[in-house]
């Protein structure tokens, strides 16, 4: 119970800070929307998008804006070294990780609520033919990406080169998540919808999530002790 209580406390605190300024949500959303808009100029000609472009562009927008959100979230903990105060809590340290992870996932899902309809509109892509499968793909993909990102962003919070190091470490490790997200989304956008292939990628994403979240929870405490 202490574990979940602490995780929710950290999540609630992050929301309270975000609600004061909407700084991270607005920059993440602005970045994702700009990214999609710029790609639409290149990949949509006379109302016709390049085949499979929508899936790739959606996941590029999620990954890049996610990196931005991760950096900004932990920048807040760096100022005043509040991350150290969190680590001093008489609670399992992985609970702190879980609270931060839930915050990042919620932020990215909020961004996706705007970005997915935008990609559907600009690329004329039938995203909503299998809404449950789409939600599963986005939710699992976002969780996998954020699980690794939260761990690395926390680890790098004291590093001077954190802004350079975060994408260098994060993108290679999350390639399986991005590939599964893109291929699964492409299967959902196929005509007719390739449901078995989409389910296969959802299964793989579930596997990646279990591995990434378990490893992150396991390694958080030793990695955060200087």
């Amino acid at each position, binding site marked *: 119970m202490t574990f979940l209580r602490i995780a929710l406390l950290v999540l609630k605190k992050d929301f*309270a800070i975000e609600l004061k300024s909407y700084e991270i949500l607005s920059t993440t959303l602005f970045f994702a929307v700009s990214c999609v808009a710029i790609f639409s100029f290149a990949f949509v000609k006379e109302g016709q998008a390049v085949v499979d472009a929508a899936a790739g562009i959606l996941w590029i927008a999620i990954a890049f804006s996610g990196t931005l959100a991760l950096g900004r979230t932990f920048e807040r903990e760096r*100022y005043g070294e509040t991350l150290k105060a969190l*680590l001093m809590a008489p609670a399992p340290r992985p609970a702190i990780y879980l609270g931060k992870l839930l915050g990042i996932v919620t932020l990215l899902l909020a961004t996706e609520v705007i970005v997915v309809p935008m990609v559907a509109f600009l690329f004329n892509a039938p995203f909503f033919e299998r809404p449950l499968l789409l939600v599963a793909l986005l939710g699992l993909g976002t969780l996998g990406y954020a699980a690794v990102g939260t761990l690395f962003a926390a680890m790098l919070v004291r590093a001077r080169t954190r802004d350079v190091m975060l994408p260098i470490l994060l993108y290679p490790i999350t390639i399986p998540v991005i590939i599964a997200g893109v291929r699964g989304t492409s299967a959902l956008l196929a005509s007719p919808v390739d449901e078995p292939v989409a389910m296969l990628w959802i299964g793989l994403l579930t596997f990646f999530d279990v591995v990434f979240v378990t490893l992150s929870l396991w390694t958080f405490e030793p990695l955060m002790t200087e």
Partner: protein
Amino acid sequence: MTFDFDHIDITDLSRHFGRRKAVSRVSFSLSSGDILGLLGPNGAGKSTLLGMLATLVAPTSGSVTYGGFKPGDQGQAIRSRIGVLAHELHLYPELTARQNLEFFARLHGLDDLNLVRAALESAGLADRGDDQVASFSRGMRQRLALERALLHRPRLLLLDEPFTGLDDRAVRIVAERLTRIAAEGAIIVLATHDLDVADGLITRMAVVRNGRLLKEESAGTGIRHRYRALVESA
């Protein structure tokens, strides 16, 4: 039963960062009621030593035990009895003073919000409780951060330059408060360059330089003179 301890033992404690020996084979013990002044020039290893006592920095070798228990075995329980006021104040500037204290109180499992009200009064911020910390002066933040560190009535209180930004009156009030807390049974470790304030406040002094403990003894009086003699002869 709540975990507690009445002494800490530091044995051959070292922390190396690559080839740099930030702390090298430091040993001493502290008991309830002690106020240890951790004195030394910049870069002497005081903050690293405080980090190891706070369980935030892992020693390269040696150990810290809290009433005989090691952080590896009783990490959460030990942390529940430690309060830290670092040079960076561990406060969220976007939140109000009250929100900061409520958050850290709940983080320590304290749901009694009267504690928060009392802490705001002790910090002299009862009428500024709903103002954002970002709007506070350094002195106000320092007072708030001290109350944050004291919220859960820690047995071991680790303070890194606690008098920074405080005016003369506030320094006197904080010093009296620390004396009272130690008299109630806390162990206080205080890293400071302010030898005038330390004189008369600390009961023991440990002088460190280049990561090594030069001397650990009863504080008495004339701290500045003894400190200079030790550091300059080392």
